[in-house]
């Protein structure tokens, strides 16, 4: 059974503006599922809609069978879905440790224990826990953003272009971290421009074009498709 399931999502940023025109998306328990597609396809809009930042005009979003459609972001966070935006995903003037505390804001009783766990998992955060988050490198910021999302021990983690703007080395480390998090049993939905890397670590993939589902299926099968290779993988 899908842990996260979005059906027939219609959403946009204005009354007459429909970016998503009936998109379906689901993440099964323990899966990594990626969404790829050209710029303007609606990938980030889908994640914002699922996480409650945008209210869908139509469609339903179920998390563990519970309807979370159009609920407030904080209610969706309480329900167990953590979302990491592509940009502005940390509190820059707060310290790394304070960022982690805010990551676990909705579950204050467990914060101290989870901070220790986050710092064990990502030693760079432990080493820089008193530094202002704005002083971190791009890769470290993405790690911090992900660690903040993990502070509530969500059932599903949604990542919006986590490798955007990172060096190849930093991106590789980040993808390793995503795989490791997934090995612990966390379901992950991910929008990613780096299609080859995203398809390589995902079990299932969705291709969005112009606000609609274009292809859906096994990530390895899609990665082997010559047309997909030509359009998205630069082959």
């Amino acid at each position, binding site marked *: 059974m899908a842990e996260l399931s979005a059906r027939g999502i219609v959403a946009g940023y204005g009354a007459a503006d429909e970016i998503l025109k009936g998109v379906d998306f689901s993440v099964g328990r323990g899966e990594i599922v990626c969404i790829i597609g050209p710029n303007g396809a609606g990938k980030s809009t889908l994640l914002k809609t699922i*996480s409650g*930042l945008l209210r869908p005009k139509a469609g339903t979003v179920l998390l563990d069978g519970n309807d979370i459609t159009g609920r*407030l*972001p*904080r209610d969706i*966070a*309480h329900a167990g879905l953590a*979302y990491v*935006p592509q940009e*502005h*995903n*940390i*509190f*820059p*003037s*707060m310290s790394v440790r*304070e960022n982690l*505390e*805010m*990551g676990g*804001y*909705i579950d*204050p009783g467990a914060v101290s224990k989870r901070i220790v766990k986050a710092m064990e998992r990502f030693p760079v955060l432990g080493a820089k826990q008193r530094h202002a988050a704005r002083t971190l490198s791009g890769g470290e910021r993405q790690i911090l953003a992900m660690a*903040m999302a993990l502070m*509530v021990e969500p059932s599903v983690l949604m990542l919006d272009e986590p490798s955007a703007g990172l060096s190849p080395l930093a991106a590789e480390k980040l993808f390793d971290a995503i795989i490791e998090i997934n090995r612990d049993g966390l379901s992950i939905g991910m929008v990613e421009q780096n299609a080859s890397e995203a398809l390589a670590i995902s079990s299932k993939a969705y291709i969005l074009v112009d606000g609609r589902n274009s292809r859906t299926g096994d990530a390895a099968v899609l990665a082997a498709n010559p047309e997909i290779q030509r359009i998205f993988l630069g082959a």
Partner: protein
Amino acid sequence: MEVLQLILNGLMAGTVLAVPAIGLTAIFAVLRFTNFALASHMTIGAFAGFIANTTFGLPIVPALAAAFVVAGIIGWMSDEFVLRPLRASGFVTTAIGSIALTIALENFVRFGFGNQMRGYDLPLRRDWVISGLRVSPQQFENLLIAIVVVAMLFAFLSMTRTGKAMRAVADNPMLASIKGINSDMVARLVSFIAMGLAGLGGMLSGLDTTIDPLVGFRTILSVFAAAVVGGLGSIPGAVVGALVIGVGEELSLLVLTPAYRTAVGFIAILLVLTFRPRGILGQRAY
């Protein structure tokens, strides 16, 4: 010696000025508009403290607490029922609305208390003279109270979960919302604390002189200048800006008559906006 005396006076005045300046900058950091209604809340605080002190006979510290609470509650209510509905129309509309609000509230105070000047029930004390520098005991007490209040505020912001949530909303409201922080509750709390600080600042200003319904209006330019000079949105910046404005206003007396000291605020705003628009410490710094 005259310059040293003016600098000392300026530092003491600046520390008191920092209290409402922190309020102004905190509102800007969280709610993204300049709330000029701070002026009338300084007046409300000054009069609430006056009633607590002269009618109920409370000593100064409990009267200051009354000034904080009354101005804070009215600040929260005025934001909730007057300014909040305007916020969707943009920050300029809301800021203009806050000017209208401050005129209305100031006139309510005038309607109740009249225009005459009033003084707190304070014992008469001689000034202290230390190494040729003159300090009034009341100024010194005001300085200590302002330092304690600012220190408590910093402790609240850096050590409590709610204080950190306020900083998080100021830093990145969208992410704060994603993390489950209720930004509406934070906005209410900020309105209460900021206007409470304004009320406290209004009473502190009045303790050293007298109060009347224009006590806030006369100070708001200096408060605004302090917040802009330090970096609008930066709480430590408001403290630094207040000290700069306080000392600047006092030193201006070397070349200007007291009637023109408010020009320092205008000049400081002009210079900062021209040469360092983000202020001394920059916006959003904590």
